[in-house]
């Protein structure tokens, strides 16, 4: 398993973050954890890329970030989806499924 590629598929990190946040507000580490759990360890999140992506999404107006105190009384920046973010997630999901089904059709026809 060590040699397996655990990079997030290029260009999908934003969508994964948006999707994760659509389940509820969360801080950076929480998002990473959640993605790793749900993907059952297929994707490992690099904190540098994640935090950069969060900056980018916030700058784009799809997320709102706010410093809060977590359950174990630690300061963390908690992000939640904005309305524009929800729309963006919807668009990206539709686009993604269209492309995935196209790819899988292509892969199937070969066999």
């Amino acid at each position, binding site marked *: 398993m060590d040699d397996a590629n655990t990079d997030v598929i290029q260009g999908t990190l934003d969508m994964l973050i948006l999707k994760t946040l659509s389940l509820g507000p969360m801080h950076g580490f929480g998002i990473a*954890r959640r993605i790793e759990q749900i993907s059952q360890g297929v994707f490992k999140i*690099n904190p540098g890329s994640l935090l*950069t992506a969060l900056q980018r999404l916030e700058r784009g107006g799809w997320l709102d970030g706010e410093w809060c105190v977590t359950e174990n009384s630690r300061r*963390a920046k908690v992000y939640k989806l904005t309305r524009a973010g929800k729309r963006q997630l919807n668009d990206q999901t539709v686009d993604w499924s269209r492309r995935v089904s196209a790819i899988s059709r292509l892969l199937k026809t070969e066999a």
Partner: protein
Amino acid sequence: MSIWRQLSRGLRTLTNRRLADQDVADEVESYLAQAAEELEANGMSPDEARRTVRLQLGNATIVREQVRSYGWENVVSACVSDLRYAARRLRYNPGFTAVCVLTLAVGIGANSAIFSVINGILLKPLPYHNPDELIDLLHTAPGVKFPDANPAPFLYFTYREQGRTFQSVGLYAQTSGQVRGLAEPEEAQYLGVTAEILPMLGVEPELGRWFSEKDDTPGSPPTMVLMQGWWEKRFGGDRSVIGRQVTVDGTSRQIIGVMPARFRFLDTNPAFLIPMQFDRNKAILGEFGIPGMARLKPGATIEQASADITRMIPIALHSFPPSPGLTVKVFEDVRLAPKLRSLKQLLVGDIGKTLWVLMGTLGFVLLIACANVANLLLVRAEGRHHELAIRAALGASRRHIVRELLTESVVLGLLGGALGLGLAYGALRILVAMAPAQLPRLHEISIDPAVVVFTFAAAMLAGVSFGAIPAIRYAGARTSTALRSGGRTSSQSRERHRANNALVVVQVALALVLLIGSGLMIRTFQTLRLVDPGFDPKDALTMRITIPPTAVKDPEAVMRLEQGILENIRAIPGVTSAGITTVVPTEASTGARQVYARDKVYRSVPPLRRLKFISPGLLTSMRNRLIAGRDFTWSDTYERHPVAMVSENLARELWGDPRSGIGKQINANPKDLWREVIGVVQDEREDGVQLEAPAVAYYPLLMDDFDGQKFGVMRSVSYIVRSNRVGSRSLISDVQHAALSVSATLPLGTVRTLQEIYDKSFARAAFTLVMLAIAGAMALLIGLVGIYGVISYSVSRRLREIGIRTALGARPQEVARLFVARGLVLALIGVGCGLAGAVALTRLLVSLLFNVSPLDPLTYTAASLGLLIAAVFATFMPTLRAMGIDPIEALRVE
């Protein structure tokens, strides 16, 4: 993603960098802490948890750097830090920085200055309403060999009434006359205009109003509009002048308006304007020579206007009576045709060519300056080779290093540009103060936004281009070789040599082209000075006087008055001779008439010739040589003998040999009295030395029956005074006094020397010469510094080698030969390229040269030899140092 949001967030980050950094740092910290906490919860010790997190996720600093580098604001701050770094490096190297900045400042400043001149003269629109619609109503008359003919009142009336392409048409003429009714009488320059002229230019008066159609109608009360300068000078800017009466040439005129300070009428500087009041009922064919302008209808072209005028000329010729004694056929034979051009063209003339040549020249200087700075930067980058290699090894990207090197050179460029702009400002102040003749629109030359943008662009371009050479060369340095060779290079790489050498060759070649260019101008100037103008401009004064009919009516009395003044002037101590003429060389002439010879048969109109009315003794005081025959006498003048003189070229044209002209008969109009040619005068280049002498007919000042006029006298004349006291104030006041003692009420024109007027005709050549010489000198100097720098650097790099050679027994001369030979080879290659370039480029100079071939062998040889000698000299100085090297010292270096 909204741009606004990007911008505002970015700005917030930029303005409060620390807070933004803290935010990122906190978030990274909290992320890593949570990861560690999770591991601890799974049973790890806190220390172990932290180490594991660091191993798996990377250390906090690296993560922070990665997150921080997001956003446009980070590009900005990276640039800022690059700038700060470049500034620091430049500050620690003041000598290098000063040399580079100065070199660039001279190069860029020279270009900014010439660009502001070009911008002010050629590029800026004229300061009138919709200036592109304004045209100069120039005509041509090939039938009488008059390439440039100004319109006449009958044409003005025709175009005004029947033109299809004009919004309006007007005439104007500059004259001088005497003004009374103020503190003291004054001979003033003023402008006559038709009513259309001021509205056509569209500059509103500051006080009062423009001329109305009615003011311009004959019989209406005479009016005048003041120009700002004269209003301030004579009325102290009094706003209640409107309505006051001033007497101009005996006519009392009411002031109806004052023009604003920004209004200039072309390049003239009149005191005031008056309406011309042409009478349509009295207009006749003829009376040419009154300049006109027109405003085209929107969208109409000069071609359409020309077609329109070509259509109207025959109509005009049949709508007005011909001048007395002439037929319509005579005017048809003139073959009048339009030669329209934009008003700007009229104003700017052919100065454009000179200016573009200068711009190109100074562009070369900038190129040479850039080559020089590139060379210095190369040398410096060579010194940093080691450092750059280490940085590359430590992970600096190629892009990063290129950006840093370029930032440094762009900073140099911009510093040079800023200083250059200052130099340009100073140079323009000097230029405007010197006010070289024939530079039109001088008052519109200034450092305006266009010039600043130009300078900035030139500085950026220069910075990037000379910075690119070292950047390309060193950014990709192969780390391992650079590090291995360490600091102890015994000699330079062949590759580096090649770049330095190429730059030096380019410098030498460009400098040679400029030297040859200025050499050709020097030769032109020499040739011009050697031309015999046909008169002697040294030690002579001139002063103009007008006697209006209101002052003295009888022509003979006018002649007596003029002669009285002349005798008074001749009596002044130190005056050797004096005379009266209507034409002062290189000043506007009084006009032209045909010359008919009695022994010729004319089937069509002969060409127009210049006219000159002179007193006895004028030829002596001008030092015009009499080729044959005799001068006029006072009895010729007062008894009105039918006599005339002709210029040598006119006599040769009419009768073959100048001497055979004596005794022939001529007149200006076949209906006039025939006049006997009593003298033939040497040709005089009265339009300026570089132009062929015109054919001239000389007549006495007082005559019967000339050109349809029964009895007439020249009322506006110039005195020519030859004296060894020219230049002294006392002579000028003596001359003025001589005039005033005859008639105290006569206003006097300014007294000037002939030399001053004559020198004006050299002005264009002198201006070009000085500018080219400055450019050539700068190029030579910068080029020599370039050669010097390269050789002296190569000496310093090869100290060890020289030391070894000397230790092994090489004699100083052999060491010297090593370097001098290299300098000479470079200079020779440069001279070769330069000669080829000069052959190609000096062709552009042809229109500025006078009797000098653009391939003048003398100039080419002298410039090449001079440059080679200077180059050897520049090589020799660092070589001396190499010769004096002590081998032991040299081997110990580094």
